[in-house]
């Protein structure tokens, strides 16, 4: 807003969560107090895992609504706007977890404008909790400021915590939190005086993240199923499962580009991670640059002695040479395969490779497609590959696809002082497999359009979610079966799902948003189709892309395949604005541009050496 000439009358963030599916509406009303028309900006931040579903502006009684269109068509249709650069910047990356949506519009003198942005996301359970993150930066004092969250969890709320980065001791009591068995209400609504940085000054204290964390109760062995309006969702994260031992090979990049802080952080994180290994786990460490340097030729049991020796190996060595990802990963895979063949590993245990790299393959095999083929062929479905892409020089999509092709996931690690913690955090998420080869079965004749129902692993603190459509709308219950491989024995659970009667958990409650199960199903389906469109075979990719596009349009989601076209009052002169959804690669590219980072190039073997030399002779 333009200083004192614009008054922000209200900012409201209204979030409703029903069975992990969050629907957030951000509303802002501003008044142009000036005697002339002027541009007013609306800029908000939303989680990058969310899809925008609606945007509207109300100006002088006229409502301008954003329309979700196929991305390519929208661009062609509004070529003029695209060529004049107006599409750029409606949605931008903002930090690690968020993206910003911003729009500006000319408002006549003494007029109001109301902006309303709606987005939806399925909250993911990580390390035993869901997180609702709201970033609020009103920039000026607001007459009516309100953050309101209502959570409806039929399983019951196990715990709930709400805090904000900007909360002072004075503001803390203003966070109103009411938690009953299946419902929670959290609100924060400071007055203008309470928002002030100091008495009499215009600055606002409200600037930062408002975070709610919670978890739900777990009871049934088969999980929890909710059926609403012809769609069902199945949440599976049973309590009390023993962890399955794991055999883990850490393949870490030791090339030059890792020099300095990145290498130190990687070493710190890995040393910490090794300390956290359970004694029944097996592990190996392989460093690679243009050659591979295994700590040992096979995996070692995580005894105290071995862990200490592994840590010593991790701490040693200086970065050298270029990056041969192909060689490093294949060596790790080969080690696991060989140890399995030679029965050196416990029969009931999970095999995984964790790759940490910060750069593109510049040594050995450099064709990323070929590396993906080599790795997939070597792994042959026998283990999971998790990849950590450190910094902005790494080709994240290459790692992402390679991991997904091999029962794993990739994660970006941002270069910052907390990088070691990010690495440990990722490891903690996957450190405790509880079940492997989990399959959730439903009667064929009762359901269709199932989302993915086979999962390679269930990790401690996470949750498996499957949704689907009932073929018979009148169906009130059906049988479900969950199968998996656990520690010592196979896991099998059966249960009966029943239609959720909203009146029972939420009597006298005006219903929340009736089609949430259907939208949750659509959200999940689109996410999985988008994944498939990157890592499946060519025919699958085409089909998945087409289906994801169709559903994005049907459910009004702004996904990487669609755009939201926002028509402004002054369209005739300036053309519409188009909001796109960023992919992780686009976010990364934006960061590269921001930092103007020059990737280090491997050019020589020489660098400073600190250890004293030894000449020796010994046996093999």
């Amino acid at each position: 807003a333009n200083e004192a000439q614009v008054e922000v009358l209200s900012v409201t963030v209204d979030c409703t969560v029903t069975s992990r599916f969050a629907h957030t509406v951000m509303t802002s009303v501003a008044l142009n107090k000036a005697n002339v028309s002027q541009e007013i900006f609306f800029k908000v931040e939303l989680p990058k895992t969310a899809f925008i579903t609606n945007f509207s502006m109300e100006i002088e009684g006229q409502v301008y609504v954003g329309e979700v269109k196929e991305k390519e068509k929208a661009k062609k249709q509004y070529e003029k706007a695209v060529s004049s650069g107006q599409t750029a910047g409606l949605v931008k990356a903002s930090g690690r977890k968020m993206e910003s949506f911003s729009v500006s519009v000319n408002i006549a003198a003494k007029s109001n404008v109301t902006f309303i942005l709606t987005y939806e996301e399925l909250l993911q359970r990580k390390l035993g909790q869901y997180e609702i993150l709201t970033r609020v930066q009103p920039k000026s004092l607001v007459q009516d400021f309100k953050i309101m969250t209502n959570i409806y969890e039929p399983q019951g709320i196990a715990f709930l915590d709400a805090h904000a980065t900007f909360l002072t001791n004075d503001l803390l009591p203003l966070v109103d939190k009411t938690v009953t068995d299946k419902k929670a209400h959290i609100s924060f609504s400071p007055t203008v005086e309470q928002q002030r940085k100091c008495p009499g000054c215009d600055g606002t204290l409200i600037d930062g993240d408002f975070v709610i964390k919670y978890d739900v109760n777990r009871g049934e062995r088969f999980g929890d199923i909710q059926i609403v309006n012809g769609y069902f969702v199945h949440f599976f994260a049973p309590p009390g499962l023993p962890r399955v031992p794991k055999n883990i090979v850490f393949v870490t990049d030791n090339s030059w580009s890792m020099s300095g802080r990145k290498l130190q952080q990687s070493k710190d994180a890995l040393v910490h991670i090794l300390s956290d290994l359970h004694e029944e786990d097996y592990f190996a460490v392989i460093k690679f640059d243009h050659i591979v340097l295994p700590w040992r030729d096979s995996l070692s049991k995580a005894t105290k002695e071995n862990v200490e020796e592994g840590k010593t190996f991790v701490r040693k060595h200086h970065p050298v040479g270029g990056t041969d990802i192909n060689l490093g990963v294949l060596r790790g895979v080969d080690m696991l395969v060989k140890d399995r063949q030679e029965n050196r590993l416990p029969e009931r245990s999970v095999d995984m490779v964790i790759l940490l790299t910060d750069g593109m393959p510049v040594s050995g095999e450099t064709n990323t497609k070929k590396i993906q083929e080599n790795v997939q062929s070597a792994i042959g479905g026998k283990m999971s590959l998790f990849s950590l892409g450190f910094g902005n020089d790494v080709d994240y999509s290459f790692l992402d696809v390679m991991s997904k092709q091999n029962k794993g996931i990739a994660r970006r690690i941002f270069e910052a002082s907390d990088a070691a913690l990010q690495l440990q955090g990722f490891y903690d998420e996957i450190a405790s497999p509880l079940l492997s080869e989990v399959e959730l079965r439903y009667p064929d004749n009762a359901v269709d359009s199932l989302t993915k129902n086979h999962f390679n692993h269930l990790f401690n603190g996470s949750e498996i979610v499957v949704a689907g459509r009932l073929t018979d709308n009148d169906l009130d219950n059906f049988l479900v079966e969950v199968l998996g491989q656990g520690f010592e024995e196979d896991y099998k659970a059966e249960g009966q799902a029943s239609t959720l009667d909203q009146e029972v958990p939420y009597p006298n409650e005006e219903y929340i948003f009736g089609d949430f199960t259907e939208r949750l199903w659509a959200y999940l389906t689109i996410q999985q189709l988008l994944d498939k469109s990157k890592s499946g075979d060519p025919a699958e990719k085409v089909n998945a892309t087409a289906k994801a596009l169709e559903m994005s349009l049907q459910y009004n989601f702004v996904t990487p395949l669609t755009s939201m076209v926002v028509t402004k009052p002054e369209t005739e002169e300036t053309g519409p604005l188009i909001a796109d959804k960023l992919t992780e690669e686009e976010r990364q590219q934006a960061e590269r541009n921001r930092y103007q980072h020059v990737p280090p190039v491997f050019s020589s073997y020489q660098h400073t050496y600190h250890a004293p030399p030894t000449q020796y002779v010994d046996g093999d």
Partner: protein
Amino acid sequence: PHFIIELPEKNDALCFNINDKPGTIFTLIKDTKSGVVVNGQTIGDKKIPPDGKINTYFWRFGITHKTLRVKLEVSTSDINVFQDSKWMTMYWSNSISLKGTNMDLHVTKDRSLTVTLKDSVKFVILLHKVWAKHPYHQDYLGFYTVDSHLLSPAVHGLLGQFYHGVEYEVSELRPGEVPEKPDATMYVKGHELNVTRGWQRDFRQDIKNGENVPCWFVHSNGTGLIDGDASDYVVSSLF
């Protein structure tokens, strides 16, 4: 036995194997100026292993320091020290520390012997114990020089010739026979050699598994890297 030459100024290492028939005695260090000589005798496996490959290792070292009038004979069974005109025997089964005017010795039970010879050299000998009933292998020793900078520029021997560095260049990195061990061309001592990137093990920290040290491997008994050939270092006795 495998030889490792660490080259700090290049942050790199060179390695080669020397193989000959069991029982051969090689000169590892010979510094005529300071009077330091280290010879080592090899031993083979108990019998030829199924793969037919004859492996040799050092099992006995003879160390002489003429100026200090000190001799050591270290084998896989015992350690004999000649000092002040008399021999003394120590066993690997005891931890021992001896501080003398010209020499310090430290035995870590069943594991290592550290020798510091005054104003000349410090080295460590590792004892690799093998299960006594192993059908093929038997105990052997490793020899690590940890401080050799006081030896004269004339020092020679299979290890000694590298104590004051070696000039070389590596280029033309290319795929090797094994994917994880690329080949390259090394220019050293006027020769152009085909070398392979690999690693050898340093057992000082972890006597059982060792720790891998990446190095450029020079084939054929270090031909081209060592002065002359391996037979030039063969001697007839330990002292």
